[in-house]
């Protein structure tokens, strides 16, 4: 991979270069000692594109979070892995980094084994080898293959959502929850919403229309989760996974009603002008307390599965109701 490491401490830059030189895969590493230097380097026409960024969060002048935000505003670096380097134990810095578009983070002082793992994780994302990332990057692969913006993303693939508060991509979401410390997990709850009859909606939508549907839905969820501290990710198949923190106990029935009302008020339409009417339903909420022998991801998957099951159950109930009405 071609990697740009940005840190104002020359020792850290040297450590990173040394570490990356000892990895199994060969990496081409460049360094910058400030965010401004990094942006100048990127603006030079002769600079070849980078596959991955390592950004220190706390730097004088422009910090790593702002630099990450600026990278995400460019088409070229909208999706490349950005690993934040932080000495901050304060979780707010990490949350802000993810909200700005970071995909992962490592803490200083480095645990070298952990850092290697994180770099390999980013590498998998770039190469598309990882099981986790396959579904996400299938989106990019299909675009690269055909170059056709009208080609629709598969239903079970996460659509990239940009510029919605608190919405991050699924890869970053998994990195985020798996790295939260036992202390940080305390008071966090994960739950999911699924769009009902998503397959039908998907079949009836164009590529652009489906992306709008997903983005608008994520916006409605984001608006309804404010003012709590939260992160949302679209996991594909019409399902959004959310984590709320600070001990907030979500009233999922009320929240679902609020979201459905917000979607209704958006007055959405298909691209051909037909009225777009759909509803969400929620699954079960799971506390992300540390569980012996169980991965936090299990809780995320359980929340995800329960929302999809609920969507199917509700549609089945509705179908049976109409059938019995008709029979009556």
């Amino acid at each position, binding site marked *: 991979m071609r990697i740009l490491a940005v840190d*104002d*401490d*020359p*020792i*850290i830059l*040297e*450590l990173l270069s*040394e*570490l990356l*030189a*000892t990895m199994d895969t060969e990496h081409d590493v460049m360094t910058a000692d400030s965010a401004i230097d990094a942006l100048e380097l990127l603006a030079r026409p002769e600079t070849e594109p980078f596959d991955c960024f390592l950004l220190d969060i*706390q730097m*004088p002048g422009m910090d790593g979070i702002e630099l990450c935000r600026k990278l995400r505003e460019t088409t070229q670096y909208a999706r490349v892995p950005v690993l934040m380097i932080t*000495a901050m134990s304060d979780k707010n810095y990490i949350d802000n980094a993810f909200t700005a578009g970071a995909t992962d983070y490592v803490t*200083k*002082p*480095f645990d*070298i*084994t952990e850092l290697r793992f994180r770099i390999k994780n980013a590498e998998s994302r770039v190469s598309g080898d990882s099981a986790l990332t396959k579904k996400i990057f299938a989106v990019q692969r299909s675009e690269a293959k055909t170059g056709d913006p009208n080609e629709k993303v598969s239903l079970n693939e996460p659509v990239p959502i940009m510029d919605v508060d608190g919405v991050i991509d699924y890869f970053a979401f998994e990195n985020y929850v798996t790295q939260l410390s036992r202390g940080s997990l305390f008071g966090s709850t994960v739950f999911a919403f699924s769009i009902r009859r998503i397959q039908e909606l998907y079949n009836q939508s164009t590529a652009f229309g489906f992306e709008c549907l997903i983005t608008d839905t994520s916006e409605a969820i984001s608006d309804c989760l404010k003012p709590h501290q939260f992160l949302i990710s679209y996991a594909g198949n019409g399902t959004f996974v959310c984590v709320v923190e600070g001990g907030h106990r979500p009233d999922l029935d009320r929240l679902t009603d609020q979201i459905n009302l917000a979607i209704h008020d958006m007055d959405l339409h298909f691209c051909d002008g037909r009225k777009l009417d759909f509803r969400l339903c929620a699954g079960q909420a799971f506390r992300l307390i540390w569980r012996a022998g169980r991965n936090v991801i299990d809780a995320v998957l359980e929340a995800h599965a329960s929302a999809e099951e609920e969507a199917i159950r509700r549609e089945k109930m509705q179908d049976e109701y109409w059938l019995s009405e008709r029979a009556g």
Partner: protein
Amino acid sequence: MMMETVQAAEMLPGLERIRARFITMLVDRLDELEQLCDNMYEDAPDLAALEMSKNILHKIAGSAGTLGMTTLGDAARTCENQIISFLESSQPGLEQIFDSLGEFAELAEGLVAPSH
């Protein structure tokens, strides 16, 4: 301190070279910290100097642990956190910050002394 460094050095072949550079820079950083605190008294805190001291300590804390000098890194982190807290809420007092800086400087001196 030696015990801490051995384990980290095993993992990266170039770590000794980086550690040597870190120690060289530590000499300058210690001088800088001393100068910043030189004219500061309990009743006359220099906020700009504290901010600069915090940045120096932040860098030391970030790299020392990775280089195997965990105790030094922890001491730098303690000073950094105390300065952050002081800048936000004037607590703890400068006296305590200077005590912590003194402990940090003693640890740093111990690392710097053999080669200087």
